[in-house]
């Protein structure tokens, strides 16, 4: 079980828990504003962009090559950016804080 905190662009913080699937699916199931996942979670649309809190990057790991490339589509991307359809929900990411990108 992992607790994950999303901070949406209006500053609202929401903590939800899950134990499987992707972070994008978790966000969708809890109606987190700004996470769309238009391609259904296959790293093709870049509409599930989050910034991982710097101290949590060791838990989430870094973006893969294709993910980094796709993030280039978004001018707001930085070194903490991830497409959260590519982050698997598991105990390993318990406690992470993700800021939904503009």
């Amino acid at each position, binding site marked *: 079980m992992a607790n994950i905190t999303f901070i949406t662009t209006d500053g609202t913080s929401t903590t939800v828990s899950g134990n499987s699937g992707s972070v994008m699916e978790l966000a*969708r*199931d*809890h*109606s987190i504003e700004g996470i769309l996942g*238009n*391609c*259904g*979670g*296959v*790293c*093709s*649309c870049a509409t599930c962009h989050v910034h991982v809190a710097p101290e949590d990057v060791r838990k989430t790991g870094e973006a893969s*090559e*294709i993910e980094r*490339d*796709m993030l*280039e*589509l978004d001018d707001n991307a930085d070194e903490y950016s991830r497409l959260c359809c590519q982050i698997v929900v598991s105990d390993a990411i318990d406690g992470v804080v993700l800021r939904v990108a503009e």
Partner: protein
Amino acid sequence: MAESPEEHVCLIVGASHAGVGCAFELRRQGWTGGIVLIDRDPQLPYHRPPLSKTYLTSEEGSYHNPLRAVDNYEREGIELRLGVSVASIDRDRSLIVLDNGEELAYDKLVLATGARPLIPPFPGLESARHVFSLRTAADVAGIRAALSEDHGKRVVVIGGGYIGLETAASLRKLGAEVTVLEREERVLARVTTPGMSAFFEQLHADHGVKILTGKTVSGFQTNATHTIVRCADGDELVADVIVIGVGIRVNVELAQRAGLEVSNGICVNGSARTSDENIYAIGDCTYHHNPRYDRFVRLESVQNAVDQGKVAAAALVGKVAIYDAIPWFWSDQYDVKLQIVGLSEGHDRAVVRKEVGEAPKFSIWYFAGDTLLAVDAVNNAKAYVIGTKFIQSGALIDRDKLADPTVPLRPANLVR
């Protein structure tokens, strides 16, 4: 017509990528009135692209990849009417009639009716068993059930378009013996260039899928255990399961019977409005002008459904919105990801760029004169992204450098 905006009702026919996206965007844009989404499919609206990809091969028994969580509709005050069909539109009275006879009044109406599979009237079709098309979750459930039954796993896929090929790849992963019958001389003939078709034909051959091109199916003959698929050239294939993926028919009938302008789809202007100022149309069902490519198109993609839905939502709340997005698309087969940006039709030159290395990683860049029209990228998101930016900016590209894999794929290296 209602007096205050709170009493206005927007009815949306079709609750899939276009309709659902439009409903939520309407709220975001400040529509305060009612929003009702109607769909004949009884399932909570779901993603379609995975149907032919991960869903076919997934372990889960029933399909669960909803576009939005059910609570989200409630929270946004979007009413879902699932499992009901819209039978007709009465424009004079501003209402729609459901198949159960119920009438629903609208102030604004959005048609997001998409498309349905084209099923040619093959002789013998009625008596053939285990024949499927692939558009809905129910279709996939049927294919999965047929394959898990204790008979053979010989699958004939009719049609070598994206859906046919993705289905072939997925069923192959499940251990089926798959043959694809394509009428044209190459697969993907309608949607891509010969080089890309050849790549995918080889990819499927490498995975043990038999692709037969130039094959026109002339009919089926079904006996106690299986069906014979007959081709016009006399060839015969034995099939336990048949998947028909030969294209779609656009759901224009509602619009047509209501007297809206229809040609290769429901005709809409740049704001997604039909020939009736209170009726909009979005997604697969529309025929619209793309200003960037200056031509009329009908697109079948998630991008088009979502982006055109957003434009309609903005227009519905009275904002000025013009649909001018650059089209994009993807297809996943085996471990190959194809990403396409732009429209390649009308190109006079194609530059192929092959990256150095073992795995297939390449891109095809389509130009008309100096203008970059489109990029097909295989396992190469970088090319896809750079292509997108170049098409957006209209940058002039040095084609010799582009074709040279020793020149790193970076915008600064490629502009003239």
